[in-house]
C-alpha cells in the first residue's frame, strides 16, 4: 500500500498545485467548457471570474471530483486526479473543503450538526467537543446564535456562511468556495473576504480557489486570477496584470460596462396585446 502515505507526502513535497490540461467538460449532450488549461498555484488564493452561466460552477464540480471531464486532465501535485485508484482518490478529496453555491447544508440537521458532521463521521471525538468545535467555527462566520436553527430557517446568506463553516471545520489544505460573497450585504461580504484572508494567514500553505463575480472581493483577496470566457481561459495572471490589461473585453468586465452602449430596453418587452390583457387583469 504505497498509496497510503502519498497524500501526506504530496502535501509536504509539492503542495497542492492544481493544473488543468485541455479540460473539456459539460453535461450530457452539452459541452460548457471547451478547452481550459490553467494553473492554480498552491498556497495562494486563485479567483475564478467569468460571466454568469459561463461554467464556473461546472469547473468547480470537476475540480472537486464530482463530475468526470469529457476530455483533458486535472492534475493534483502532478497526478491525474481521475486516473487514481478509488481509495487514493478519496484520500485526496478528504483534504478538500467545499462551499457550494447555495451552501448545500443537510436539511434534516441543525446548523451546528451540519458543521460538526464531517468531524463526527470521521473521528471518535466526544459529542461535547464536536459541539464546541462547531460553535467556535460558527462564531467565525457570525452564526453562533443560530446554531440550533435548521437550514430552511436561515436566509440565503446565512446558509452560505454556514456552508463555509462546514467547509473549514476540518482545516482542509485546499478550500473551494463557489461565490462566497454573492447574496451578502457589503459588511458581511467584507467580513467573508477577511475570513478567507485570515484563514490564509493562519494556514499559509492553504490553497484557495474562489469562484466569484465580486470584483471588490477579487481585488482584496486574490493572488491569481483565472477568467473563464466562452468555454476557454480569457485571462490568467495576477490581479495587477488584470487591472492593467488593455483587452477590450477585460476592461468591460473590470469596469462594469454593459455589452452594448445603447440601452437594452429600446422596445418595450411586452407588446400592446399583452399590455391590454394586463390592464384588464389589473382592473378586475
Amino acid at each position, binding site marked *: 500500500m504505497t498509496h497510503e502515505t502519498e497524500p501526506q507526502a504530496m502535501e509536504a513535497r509539492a503542495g497542492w498545485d492544481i493544473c488543468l490540461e485541455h479540460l473539456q467538460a459539460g453535461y450530457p449532450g452539452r459541452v460548457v467548457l471547451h478547452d481550459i488549461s490553467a494553473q492554480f498555484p498552491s498556497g495562494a488564493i486563485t479567483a475564478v471570474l467569468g460571466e454568469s452561466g459561463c461554467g464556473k460552477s461546472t469547473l468547480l464540480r470537476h475540480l472537486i471530483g464530482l463530475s468526470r471531464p469529457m476530455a483533458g486532465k486535472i492534475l493534483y501535485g502532478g497526478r491525474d486526479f481521475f486516473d487514481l485508484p478509488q481509495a487514493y482518490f*478519496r484520500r485526496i478529496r*478528504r483534504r478538500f473543503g467545499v462551499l457550494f453555491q447555495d451552501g*448545500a447544508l*443537510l*436539511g434534516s440537521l441543525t446548523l451546528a450538526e451540519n458543521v460538526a458532521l464531517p468531524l463526527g*463521521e*470521521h473521528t471518535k471525538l466526544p459529542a461535547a467537543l464536536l459541539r464546541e468545535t462547531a460553535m467556535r467555527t460558527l462564531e467565525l462566520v457570525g452564526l453562533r446564535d443560530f446554531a440550533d436553527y435548521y437550514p430552511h430557517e436561515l436566509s440565503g446568506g446565512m446558509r452560505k456562511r454556514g456552508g463555509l463553516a462546514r467547509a473549514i471545520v476540518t482545516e482542509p489544505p485546499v478550500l473551494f468556495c463557489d461565490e462566497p460573497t454573492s447574496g451578502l450585504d457589503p459588511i458581511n461580504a467584507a467580513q467573508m473576504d477577511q475570513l478567507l484572508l485570515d484563514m490564509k494567514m493562519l494556514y499559509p500553505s492553504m490553497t484557495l480557489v474562489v469562484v466569484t463575480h465580486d470584483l471588490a472581493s477579487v481585488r482584496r483577496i486574490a493572488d491569481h486570477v483565472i477568467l473563464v470566457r466562452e468555454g476557454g481561459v480569457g485571462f490568467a495572471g495576477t490581479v495587477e496584470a488584470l487591472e492593467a490589461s488593455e483587452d477590450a473585453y477585460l476592461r468591460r468586465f473590470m469596469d462594469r460596462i454593459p455589452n452594448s452602449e445603447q440601452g437594452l430596453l429600446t422596445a418595450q418587452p411586452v407588446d400592446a396585446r399583452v399590455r391590454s390583457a394586463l390592464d384588464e387583469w389589473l382592473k378586475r
Partner: protein
Amino acid sequence: MKVLVWLGSWALSLLNTLGSFFIFFVDGIRHIFTTPKMAPKVIRQMYAIGVQSLFVIVLIGLFTGMVLGLQGYYVLVKFGSTGFLGAAVSLTLVRELGPVLTAIMLAGRAGSAMTAEIGVMRITDQIDALEVMDIPGMGYLVAPRFLAAVLVFPLLTSIFDVVGIFGGYLTGVQLLGIGEGIYFGRIAASLTATDIWEGFIKSLVFALLMTLICCRQGYFAHLRKDGRGPEAVANATTSAVVISCVAVLVADYVVTSSMLR
C-alpha cells in the same frame, strides 16, 4: 423484424435495470459494514420506519383480523366447522396477510418518505456535499435504511399478526359466539414453527425489496427522464411505491411457492 428489435432492446434494458438494482443492493449491504457510527443512524431510521408506522399497522391489523373472522365464519359455517376459525385466521395472517399488508403499508408510509427525502437531497446537491466530505451517500443514507428495515419489518409484522388474531377473536368469539377456548386452542394446535418461519422470511425479503426500490428511486431521481427537479422527485416517489407493491406481491408468490415445496 421491428418486433424483434423492440423485444431485444426491451430485454436488454430489463437486464440492465436488474443489474443496476443488484449493484445498488450489494453496495448498500457493503456500506453497512464500512460506515462509521451506524447505531445512531439506524435508530433514527427505525424510529422513522417503525415507531411512526405503529399506529397504522395496529389499525390495519385489527380490521384485517376482524374481517377475516367474519368471512372465515361465513365460509366455515357452511361446512359446519366454525371451530376451525382460529386456525384459519391465524394461518392466513401469519403466512400471508401479515407480511404482505405490513410491507404494502410500509411502502406507502415509510418507503415513499425514503424516496422523497433522498430524492430532495439529491436534487439540492446535498448528496454531492456528503460525497465531497468523504461521507458516501450509500453509507450515510442507504445502508442505515436497509438495516433498520430488516430489523423493523419482522417486528411490525408480528405486531400485525397478533393484533389481527385479536381482531378475529373480537368478531369470531365476541360477536358470533365461537368458544374462546376453541378459537385459541385451534391456533395453538395448527400454527407450526414452519408457518412462523415463512412469515418471518417473507417480512425480511419484503424489507430488503422495499428499501432497495425506494432508496434507489430517490438516489437516482436526478437521472429521470420523465421530469426535472421537484417533478422528478414526485415521479420517483410514485413509482417507488408502485414498484414496491408489485415487487412485494411477486416476491410473495415466489417465496410461498418455494416454501410450500
